[in-house]
Each structure stands twice: as structure tokens, then as C-alpha cells.
């Protein structure tokens, strides 16, 4: 009874992951080609993959005859599962804010993404500022609390943004929703965006030097007062130290080159370029810097800086040696990243494996979590998606999704559980109506409240 009442929170109680054998499936491992065979899942990990496997005694059998298994989809750019706004747009450098503080594990978009085969998503701050907030990848462990969503051990990130968004193009002077008295926020040009990033890193360098000096003296037994901890500069110091990844929102070739040069000059790396619709024009330079590129399959022209896009972008960058992923940036698109990957086969002639890698292994590499996820290999996390049909097709439906060897989405359960949930809901609606029909004693209302 209660379980129906609290479907989101109680149904999925994971004590310890079961041992599973997924049999007779077409397994697209991404790392080692495609094969027909079985996968053994034990203690949350993939313990064996092959045409023939040793089935542990007592393992639960999932018969996937005629079905396909792929690694869990990884979305390198998402804004779901965050409470209270994803943009701290009031300042041009908002590195003090952290998505980690506002994780909302009850966002239904998580469950929907899960139903679309997504097992990990990089939750990014918005693009209102040249330097935005701190970010982190989450696993879509629907039913767990905020801490339980966090991808353990993953390197955290920070959002940068170039171009129209940070210069607030198309917004009133003080920003959207601001009263007219609010003055315009710096920067208003692309030059200003570059300047803002430079200024911030100049500040961060001074800050880092201050702390390094203090740490050195403390190590020698010094008893001085530590410098003030500045939450804005702390993450930039981590970027300089290589402990935090930069995910930079960008569109135009010129601004991409600008950012790569600034990063080289200050001695840090851009981990991924996000959107990067003109990446095909500067793919060689991107590859030389070692940045990854996370782009859309065919979404463009929604603003001036997004006009010069082509559907071959992903394939071209890939062929020039860039690690490329396809992302959603959107809760709806997130639910069919598999078919987004499929488009890279049509535009650019990528192989099935190469296309699928763009939503699995490649984003895993970009996020530095490819030792854990992104492909079906023994020893990796058992983050698996079972499709009824060829997964790069529009017609494929997700049947089951496992994360850490636990089933978090099961299409049969979902569909069969709907009637009960609907009935439960109707009951509450009826109960409320009934109560309302009684002589209503409304609370005394006061004017001006």
C-alpha cells in the first residue's frame, strides 16, 4: 500500500546488488566490438562478457534473446536534477556556486532520462557568465538521496561560457527579470568575455601563490594565520592545479581559439568544449590542445552565433583526432540520445561503434570516468541498457536499465504499475473533493497578506 504511495522513494530499495546473467543478447561493447553472448553482473560490476560465460550459481537470469545491450548512455551536458535555478547570473564570475549544493534527486527528469537509457549525466551550471559555477557528474540512481546520486570519485568540473550568453545579448541591460534600474553587467562584448576570464585567473594566480606560501610555511611548522578562503577563487586554483575540469560553452571558431590560447597562456587545460558548433573549422587546434568536444547532432540556428553549424561537425572533429561526444543540454532530448548518436552514421559515415561511442565511451573519457563506465568490459561498473531493437534506431525502446548492477528502470514494471498509481491518485483526489464538499471553514484571511 505504502509502496504504491511512495513509488519514487520506496520501491527502489537497493540493499546490495544482485548477481545477474544477461543471456543471449547482442552486446555492443563499444570497446571491443559487437558480439552475441552473455554478460555476468556481480557486486555491481561486470564480471564477465563473452559468447560463453561461467554462470554463477544462484544468479538471476535475464533472457535478452533478440535484444541488444549497450553501455549506459552518458550525457556530457545536462541541467536536470538541480533546485532553484542553474544560473547564478548576477555576477560575471560565479565560480563560488556549486551544483552539488542543489542536487534534487526527486526531479522526474532523472527517471525519464533513465527510461531513455542514460545512466550518467554531467550536470552543468548555465551559461550566463564567462566563468560559471562548479559542476559534477551524477549517476541516475533514481530513488537515492542527493549524496547517493553523485558519481563517486569523479573529477569535478566548472562551467565557462563564451559569446552571446555571457555578454547577455538580447537581454535588458541588467539581465532578464532585473528592474530597469539595475546597471548592465560587464562584459557586453566578446573582448570583455576574454578579459573577464583573464582577470579571474590573474586573481586566482595571486591567490594560489598566497596559499602555496602559507602551505609551505605550515609544512615547516609555521603558525601564521592562514589566508582568507575565497570560494570564488578556490575552484580556479583547482583548475590551475589540474584538479578540476573546465567545460566551456562556445560556438564560434574565433572564440574557441581565444579560449584555447588563454588556457595555454595561463597553463591550464580546457577539458571539453560544449556545443562547439563551429568546431569543424578549428578541429586541428582543438585536438592539439587536447580538448574534447561535446556537440549536438543537428540542433542549430537558434541564435546568430549558431548559424554556421553543419551536421558533419561531430564526424569531422572525430576524424581530426578530437574526442567527440553528443549531448542533450535538454531534459527531453536527453531521453533519446541513442538516436542522436545514430545521426552521426548518416552524416559523416561513422561506424555503429563509433557512433555509439559518442554517447558512451567518449563522454566517459571526456569526464575522466572511462576507467569505470562507457563500455561493456569486465571490471567496469555494471551500467547497462537493454533495448528491444537495434539501439541506434528511433524504434528501439529501453527495456531495462542497470546502474551498478541494480535495475533502476524496468519497462514491464513501469507499464504494469501505472494503473495502481493512477488509482492511488484518484483516491486522493476524491478524498480531497469529499472534504471540500463539507461546510468549508476557510482560514481567516487577512488583507495584505
Amino acid at each position, binding site marked *: 500500500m505504502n509502496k504504491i*504511495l511512495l513509488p519514487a*522513494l520506496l520501491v527502489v530499495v537497493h540493499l546490495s546488488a544482485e548477481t545477474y546473467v544477461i543471456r543471449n543478447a547482442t552486446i555492443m561493447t563499444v570497446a571491443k566490438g559487437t558480439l552475441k553472448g552473455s554478460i555476468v553482473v556481480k557486486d555491481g560490476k561486470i564480471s564477465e562478457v563473452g559468447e560463453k560465460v561461467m554462470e554463477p550459481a544462484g544468479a538471476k537470469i535475464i533472457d535478452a534473446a533478440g535484444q541488444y545491450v549497450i553501455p549506459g548512455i552518458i550525457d556530457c551536458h545536462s*541541467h*536536470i*536534477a*538541480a*533546485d*532553484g*535555478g*542553474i*544560473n*547564478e*547570473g*548576477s*555576477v560575471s564570475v*560565479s565560480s563560488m*556556486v*556549486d551544483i552539488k*549544493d*542543489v542536487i*534534487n534527486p*526527486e*526531479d*522526474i*527528469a532523472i527517471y525519464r532520462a533513465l527510461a531513455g537509457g542514460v545512466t550518467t549525466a554531467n550536470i552543468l551550471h548555465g551559461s*550566463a557568465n564567462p566563468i560559471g*559555477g562548479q559542476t559534477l557528474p551524477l549517476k541516475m540512481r533514481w530513488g537515492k538521496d*542527493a549524496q547517493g546520486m553523485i558519481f563517486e570519485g569523479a573529477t569535478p568540473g566548472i562551467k565557462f561560457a563564451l559569446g552571446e550568453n555571457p555578454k*547577455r545579448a538580447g*537581454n*535588458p*541591460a*541588467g*539581465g532578464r*527579470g*532585473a*528592474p530597469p534600474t*539595475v*546597471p548592465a*553587467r560587464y562584459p557586453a562584448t566578446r573582448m570583455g568575455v576574454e578579459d573577464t576570464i583573464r582577470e579571474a585567473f590573474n586573481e586566482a594566480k595571486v591567490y594560489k601563490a598566497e596559499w602555496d606560501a602559507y602551505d609551505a610555511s605550515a609544512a615547516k611548522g609555521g603558525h601564521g*594565520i*592562514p589566508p*582568507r*578562503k575565497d*570560494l*570564488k577563487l578556490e575552484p580556479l586554483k583547482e583548475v590551475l592545479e589540474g584538479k578540476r575540469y573546465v567545460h566551456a560553452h562556445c560556438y564560434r571558431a574565433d572564440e574557441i581559439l581565444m579560449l584555447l590560447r588563454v588556457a595555454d597562456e595561463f597553463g591550464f587545460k580546457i577539458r571539453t568544449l560544449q556545443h562547439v558548433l563551429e568546431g569543424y573549422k578549428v578541429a586541428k587546434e582543438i585536438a592539439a590542445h587536447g580538448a574534447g568536444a561535446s556537440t549536438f547532432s543537428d540542433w542549430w540556428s537558434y541564435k546568430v552565433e549558431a548559424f554556421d553549424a553543419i551536421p558533419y561537425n561531430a564526424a569531422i572533429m572525430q576524424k581530426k583526432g578530437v574526442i567527440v561526444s553528443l549531448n542533450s543540454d535538454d531534459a527531453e532530448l536527453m531521453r533519446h540520445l541513442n538516436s542522436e548518436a545514430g545521426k552521426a552514421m548518416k552524416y559523416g559515415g561513422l561506424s555503429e561503434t563509433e557512433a555509439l561511442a559518442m554517447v558512451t565511451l567518449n563522454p566517459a573519457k571526456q569526464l575522466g570516468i572511462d576507467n569505470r563506465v562507457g563500455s561493456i568490459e569486465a571490471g567496469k561498473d555494471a551500467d547497462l541498457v537493454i533495448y528491444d531493437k537495434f539501439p541506434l534506431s528511433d524504434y528501439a525502446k529501453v527495456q531495462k536499465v542497470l546502474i551498478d548492477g541494480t535495475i533502476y528502470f524496468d519497462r514491464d514494471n513501469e507499464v504494469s504499475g501505472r494503473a495502481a498509481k493512477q488509482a*492511488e*491518485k484518484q483516491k*486522493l*483526489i476524491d*478524498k*480531497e473533493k469529499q472534504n471540500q464538499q463539507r461546510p468549508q*471553514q476557510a*482560514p*481567516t*484571511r*487577512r*488583507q*495584505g*497578506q
Partner: protein
Amino acid sequence: MKQSIAKVLTALLVCRAIALAQSHPAVAISNAKIVTVSGPVIAKGTVVVRNGLIEAVGENVPVPADAMLVEGEGLTVYPGLIDGLSTWGQPYTAPAASTTVTAGRGGRGATTTTTTTPPAAAVSTVGPARGPEDRPATTSWLKIADDVTFTDRRIESARSAGFTTAVTFPTRGIFAGQGAIIDLLSDAKPGEMVLVPAAGQYISLSRGGGGGLGGGFPSALMGVISYIRQIYLDAAHYQLVKDAYAKDPRGVERPVYDRALEGVLESKRILLPANRLVEIDRMLRFAAELKQPAILYGGRETFRPEAAALLKKFNTPVLLSMRWPEKPRDADPEDVESLRTLETRDKAASAPMALQSAGVKYALYSDGLDQPRDLQRAVKKAIDAGLSREDAIRALTLSPAEIFGVADRLGSIEKGKIGNLVVTRGDLFDDHTKVEMILVDGRKYVPAPDAAPTGGRGATTDPGVNR
């Protein structure tokens, strides 16, 4: 000789002290049922209140000759009710400390706190804040004890519902300032009303600078959280620097006085808002990270077992809003509400019961309700949802006193405690119960004639009050 002079002097002093208090003579209520809260109910007994304090309570307590006798046959005496989070007693009509927004919608953009907009005047910065260093929406140094006044007309209406005490907080901004525990007296000097001048720092997560993009820092929830975190880091650093300077100022740069940090350092506990389960989880962890003794307020989803378990685990008390969520009256009938929203409305009033059984320390608070009828009905709703009458009374007396560390003075009928009592005919919170008399600091009040909670229809509404 000397001794006798001293005796005379002492006697004179005592007389004078008594004379001061005797404008409010001793009161004895005899033959009444006494709900002590801290101990067993006395079926028939006497309470004596003198000089604002409970002088004696028990079955066989003699009535002092000089006391005004109240024949208590058929009456019940309770400790005065305490509103654990209030804005009563403040000179302006502070918008209620409301955290009650329409329940549910766990998704993106879900509201965390209130709809109250901090008035621009109360925000200390000039122009939009450019970062934490501008201390946006912060008046942490403010002590509402310095501003309390009996002229707030809600005092009389709340008292008529049996409330004798309120923990009243400033509520504007992110760091609003420190609340005070006050007695709901009328015609008293503000100083007489104050029991505890600094009861803790009220923190809200309402967007500081005016909301939206460009209205100044912080504009998003994560901005507010990061701001609060920075303030506590700064406060710790400020303390270090100040201490070092105090030790030896020679050759050391003078630390810059920062009233925002002073206010934070002076606060011995913080109040954090949390309604949804996610918020309860978030704020409990946040308080632990800040290493501040905390009280959560709001508590709408504390009826969920996970929420109660968390509060228990973190050993953190919660102030529960008595403004139970209701279906918005102007709701679009075509709107499909989520199961969670429906469930929250259905179960919210069972929260006290859930917290009670989980062993979580909690108290109820008015959250903007101030009419006796509404307050009484709100408590009744929790009782109807399974809370025992005794527990309901405790949640409005001894429990808030314990949460705010004043159980040695307030919250029960015990010898030596402050003489705050409610005398009713019938059980408190019953529809037809009549509050006969209220004692606040031993001063006798009768409920306003039109404010008595008779439970009937058409009880008082005075839209003009407190404008």
C-alpha cells in the same frame, strides 16, 4: 543595632520589590484541573502565581490570604502556549515567516522558500551586490529584542488563543538577524516583554538581490548557499585575525570591523528553512558542514518516514508550520497535480505524529496564522491526524522551550517557572472550549470578547488590523 538597621533596610527593599509587583497581585487558582505538562495531570489542585512566577502548584496547596482567588471548579489550567517561530510583537507588519508555498513539484525551479520579497530598504547594499563581500540581504547584527512592542495588535489575538510567549524573529533577507523570546504582554515596557534577547539567527534562502538574472548576487539558490558558506568561512577567519590583534596589535594591520560577521559570531544557533525532503536532507548536511547548532523550520514533508529518520540521525529539532498545505483556491481545474503534491496535502498534518513516533524534537509554530480560530483549528487538524492531545500541548509549550533552551523558565507548570498560564473551560483545542483567562508574567488578561475561540462560524475577522 547595626543588624536591626540592616533588617529594616532589607525589609524595606523587599516591601519595595513587592510593591512594584503588586500592581499585579498574587493569583491563586484552586480546585482546577492542572495540566502541568512536565508531570502528571493534577485532577484537582491549586496554582499560585506571585511576582510573575509560579509560587506553588499541587493538590494541597493553601491559598495565600493576600491572593486573588479564582474558583477553578470546572476549569483547566495549562502552561501558556509558546509560538516557536513568530513575528508577533514587532512594530511593523512583517510578512509572516511563511515558508508555505504550494506543496509539491519536486522538479526544477521548485520553490524553496517564501514569496516574501525583502523590501529594498531593509537590504543594506547600495545597488546590486557584486558578490559575497557586499554582504547582500544581510542584517545579521539586528536584534529584534530592541524593536519589540506591545502595540502589535496580533498580541491580543494570539493571547486570546492561549499564547503567552513567542519566539519572534526578523525575517527579511538571507541573514535576517536574531530573534527574541518575548512574553505577550500589553501595556508593558518593551524591555519587560523580553525573556531572551538573542534566541538565534534567522536564515532564509530567499533570493537576496531582487531575484532573476542581473538583480545582484545571489540570484539562484546555489548562490545563496554559497554566500552563507562564505560568510561562515569569513567569520572564522575574522575571529582568528581579531584574536591575534587583541593579543598584540603592535605592527599588525587593524582588522576591519564587519558587523555582518559580528552578528553571525554572536548567534548561538541558526534557523534554516526546509520543507521538502530534499531540503531537509540538504539543510541538515549544510548545518553540519557549518558546524552550527541548527533548528530547521517549515517541515512540510516531515510526515515522510525518511525525513523523520534524517532529523533523528542528525539530532536536529524542527519547527513545524501549522499552516498545512491546501489546494490553491484559484487553481486551474484543468491542472493535473502530481501524486506527490496530493499526498503531501493529504498527509501534511500527520507530520507531528510522525515526528513524535520517530523521537524527533519538534514544536509547532503559527507561520502567519494569528486568529484564535485558525490557530485552534490548525492544532485540531494535527490531533485529527493522530497526534495525542497531550503531545499537541507539549509541542506548543515545553518542547519549544526545550528547543530554545529555556525549559528552566517556561513550558510547564512548575514551582519557580514564569507565571504564564492559560485557563480554559473545556479541553484546549476543542471546538467549544472557551479561554477564560490568561496569565502572562503573572498578569491577568481575559480574551478579547470577539476573539474567543468559540469554534462557531463567523468568528472574528478584522482585515484592518495591522495594516
